[in-house]
């Protein structure tokens, strides 16, 4: 593989191995089924920014989001089917799986909001009832029914697997939201200006606000489970941070890693019970952390 600028990177557990998908800005999409040891071209042009794995009818299915379509594989990434969305083609940025008895998959796009599939990713329908800001920047599943979506200037939630969306009206509209994460009681948003804001979902109020020192765009956020305190991981284009606080105490900010080369894409991935941060860089290289749990 040459060394193009990476636009997106994602990994998912498939069968016995790991499927990785990277997108280069100029030379298309590559997939790896051997944990990144070797890469095969998957799609010649277009961008892919998301990959997800789900169980459908007791069979593993892998989905890769492209521009205007979604690639679908039931063969551990060996063969792929193309499932179209709409025209003009929206870029699929993120997936979320509502893992109910029949999984519902949501695909967030940069231009056309969210698409929804109830048949394991074969057919996709627009699912934007109430989601009036359609430029999706991040999409995260909270539990089997709840998904939270960031759409530049607002955050929306669904509690019925994407049938309808409700705006989180009380969040502060400050900066462009580029990342989001939610737990049972916590909603965290990250902005393009490197600001992390955490809200209490019960009280409907802001808990903490942190300006990350590098002021780089937030690429992804992850809430860590903790009984006594709140812990968040944040990945920006320059570094990975740990933000922690307890009620009534100061916020503790730690830098876990500084990227030597600026990241163009990246996010947190949970694989086999471990939590990794992956990033694609300006020079075409990719970096993966050890388990962050």
């Amino acid at each position, binding site marked *: 593989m040459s060394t193009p600028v990476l636009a997106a990177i994602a990994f998912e557990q498939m069968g016995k191995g790991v499927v990785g998908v990277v997108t280069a800005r100029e030379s298309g999409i590559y997939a790896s089924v051997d944990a990144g040891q070797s890469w095969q071209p998957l799609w010649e042009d277009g961008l892919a920014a998301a990959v997800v794995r789900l169980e459908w009818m007791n069979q593993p299915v892998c989905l890769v989001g492209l521009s205007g379509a979604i690639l679908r594989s039931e063969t551990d990434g060996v063969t792929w089917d193309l499932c179209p969305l709409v025209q*003009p083609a929206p870029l699929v940025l993120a997936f979320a799986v509502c893992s109910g008895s029949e999984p519902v998959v949501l695909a967030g796009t940069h231009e056309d909001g969210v698409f929804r599939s109830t048949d394991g990713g074969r057919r996709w329908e627009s699912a934007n*009832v*109430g989601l*009036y800001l359609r430029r999706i920047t991040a999409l995260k599943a909270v539990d089997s029914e709840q998904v939270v979506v960031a759409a530049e200037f607002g955050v929306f939630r669904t509690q019925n697997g994407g049938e*309808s969306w409700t705006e989180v009206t009380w969040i502060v*509209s400050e900066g462009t939201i580029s990342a989001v994460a939610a737990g049972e009681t916590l909603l965290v948003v990250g902005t393009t200006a490197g600001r992390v804001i955490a809200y209490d979902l019960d009280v409907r109020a802001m808990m903490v606000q942190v300006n990350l020192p590098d002021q780089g765009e937030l690429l992804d956020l992850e809430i860590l489970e903790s009984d006594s305190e709140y812990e968040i991981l944040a990945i920006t284009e320059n570094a990975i941070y740990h933000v922690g606080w307890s009620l009534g105490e100061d916020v503790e900010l730690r830098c876990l890693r500084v990227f030597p080369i600026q990241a163009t894409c990246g996010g947190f991935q949970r694989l086999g019970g471990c939590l990794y941060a992956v990033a694609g860089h300006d020079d075409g290289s990719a970096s993966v952390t050890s388990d962050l749990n």
Partner: protein
Amino acid sequence: MSSMNRHRMRYSYGIVSGARVADDFARGVRDLTDLIRPVYGASGRFVASAGPLGASAPELLHDGAVIARRLTELDDRLENAGAMFLRSLLQQIDGLAGDGVATGALIFETIYTRGRSAIAAGHDPVRLRNALLRELEVVFAELRRQRRLPMSRQDLRLLAQSVGKDNRLAAEIATIVDVVGPLGMIEVRPGSAGQIGHDYIDESYWPTRPLERSHLDATWGMRSDISLCAVFVSDLNLETRDEALALLKAARHQEASSLLIFARSCGPQCRSVLLANASPAFRVLIIATPGNSDPERWESMEDIAMMTGAHVYHAAAGSSSSEVTSGDLGYCRRAWATRTHVGFVGGHGDGRALRHRVAALTMQFQTSIDPPSRERTRRRLSRLTGRGAILWVDGLTDREIAFQRSRAERTARVVQRALTCGYVPGGGVALLVCANRLVEESNGTFDTAEDRVAIEALRNGLLTPVATLAKHANLNPAVTIAQLESQMERGMDSSVYRLVSRDDAPLLDAFETIETAVRIAVSGAAQALTIETVVLGRNPAKVTA
């Protein structure tokens, strides 16, 4: 000279006072109530209304509000005054709650009749009115205690069944309301016979018409779809070639694949230039600015501009489209037009400004108490947020479709309101509980004789709905009420008229409906009881006849 005397001299008013007011006015109230009474309850009957000329087949009515609307005049002027007094209250109930008209009529008639009897026996009408209004607070407190929120989809279905009296319709409406919420717009349209269903609308669309129909593709049911559109928003009368050329130039400069024009009208010169430059690779849609009046047009222009990022060209401001630049045009990813509607999705407006507009309109919706204003705000919000649904109703005849449509609209309205206002289980039983609370609160002691009369009249008024349901089911009302009172944890399933467990109550009533019906009926009856004299309009000969 008083103004009344001046009017008497000019218009020959008739004035009636005393016992005759009590008798004839009450008779009018009773006539209207008797007309509405049969439709009360889930298995209520129909009322047939013959047209004024008697030429057309009778209209079958199942809705108390429509029945009240159809009764425009009684022969006797004084009876008519009574009927029209009640009618205006019922219209108020319908306007505010969208349902509960029959409940209100039953309560009003009972309280008014009992109150008149007490006044005839020597009680003071003003003290009686004050006592009724005071005791109303006890009823509201009890109703609020019974109120339940939030509503599950099953609760919504039960409520829709209670209001609409149709299982299939109830299931559809519950599903839709659960998804679109209290702010979504539900549009009811006739579907094919035997079909009932729904589609969600996550686009913004307006009823309007294309100014040039040749755009519409007959192979797609007279519909046209365009994408990557430049959007021009105005209420201008486009006339000249220069205006058309300026629009085309601006759209080309924006590198759009199509042009969507909103205008008041488009003259032949302008139209011919636009059409001559349209092709499969660059399509043009010319659409009449949505709205039936200037304020409506301004609202729709503002909203379209907000969503697409366009600059609005107001005719009133003397704007001309020959000055338009690419920066004035908005942009959307897809748009469509049919003979009756235009819609678009993916507007490139300022998301932050849109968010503020939605927040402001939501606040306006929540605080507005004027039903038409609320509805207009709901429509705007629904368009801005892409939150709506089309409910398709069926029917074998036009008459049946019209009936289904009006029933579906009413049911959807009530169920949507109940999402925020809540529900009371059991309907008539909720009022029965309130009636018993009145008696408990008074504890058998009364400050004045009027207090006793007020509590008795109010109690009887609140029991009338349950008694009516019992009568409809060929049950003895007194026995039924006694049974219910002895087993207060049980409710009445008025669809089959049998006693069922309260927890399994298959029918619910919207809190707002019951609260509004009780408030307006009781306060209206209290007011009516103080009427001593009625001034009738022209034709006094008929009054004295």
